[in-house]
């Protein structure tokens, strides 16, 4: 079975995210004064062959721990879709 995986990697809450702050300031400057607390992360998509949804998720979590996210500074969310 092929699964389509979406991974969302975000800077860990509580750590300074200067990129998010800069985007927030730019939004405010454009007139979107209602925008607050912007954070900028990364989205990763991949296709994965696996025997089951659980197996797919376990493999992707391993990929996140080893490469896709930095365990010191980032958190991640995994979403598995059947293709």
């Amino acid at each position, binding site marked *: 079975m092929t699964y389509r995986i979406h991974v969302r990697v975000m*800077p860990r809450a509580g750590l*300074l995210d*200067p990129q998010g702050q800069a985007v927030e300031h730019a939004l405010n400057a454009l007139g979107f004064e209602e925008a607050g607390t912007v954070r900028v992360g990364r989205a990763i998509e991949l296709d994965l062959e696996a025997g089951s949804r659980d197996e797919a998720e376990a493999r992707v979590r391993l990929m996140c721990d080893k490469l896709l996210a930095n365990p*010191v500074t980032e958190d991640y969310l995994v979403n598995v879709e059947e293709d």
Partner: protein
Amino acid sequence: MPRVAVVRFPGSNCDFDTLSAASRYGAEAYFVWHRDTDLRQADIVILPGGFSYGDYLRSGAIARFSPVMQAVQRHAEAGGPLLGICNGFQILCEAQLLPGALMRNAALSFVSKPVDVTVEQTDTAFTCDYEPGARLRLPVAHGEGRYVASPDTLRMLEAEGRVVLRYVAATERSPFQPNPNGSANHIAGVCNAAGNVVGIMPHPERAADRVLGLTGGTGFFTSPVSAFEMRSASGVSAQ
């Protein structure tokens, strides 16, 4: 004469400066390509600055998986001196040879200027030629140099004396602000527990020749040579 391997990744750009500085101060220095699996009997290994793999994903994240890194890891585990400069420091953190991580500078801008640092730990393979507390003026050039670690890790680093370099204003009239990137505890460099693995954001290879205007970085190249010669004189093998 000790052998210094300077590891080149696609995107390394301080490789020639580093090779030149190491050669100038009593080492036989040569390049090792990231696809090599053999460090060719290196006594000392240096990962130079640059933008390995275009900083894709995160600085240092891809370089960590280069074939050569297994040999670098073995060299470090055997107690061999290993220095990461700038991107090299980022790679050592990603490879978990050093604790913590280097994040986007707090002020967002790429910082390229001289800074003042103090040598906080001289009991390492790369700082033993400095006086404790020595103040150095070294160039930095990075966009992601903000050192971050968990509160427990920071406490451990401080308690064990593993902060090697710290940003300071050299004098009250120093033209340079301390801490160009927002690093935790003003940290500019750290080492592992044994002191053989050192990572620093400033560039000593750009401050190791009078013609460059700064010479404060020289000790990072003479220290491992001094240590090597002392080991050789006492008849102990290099590793």
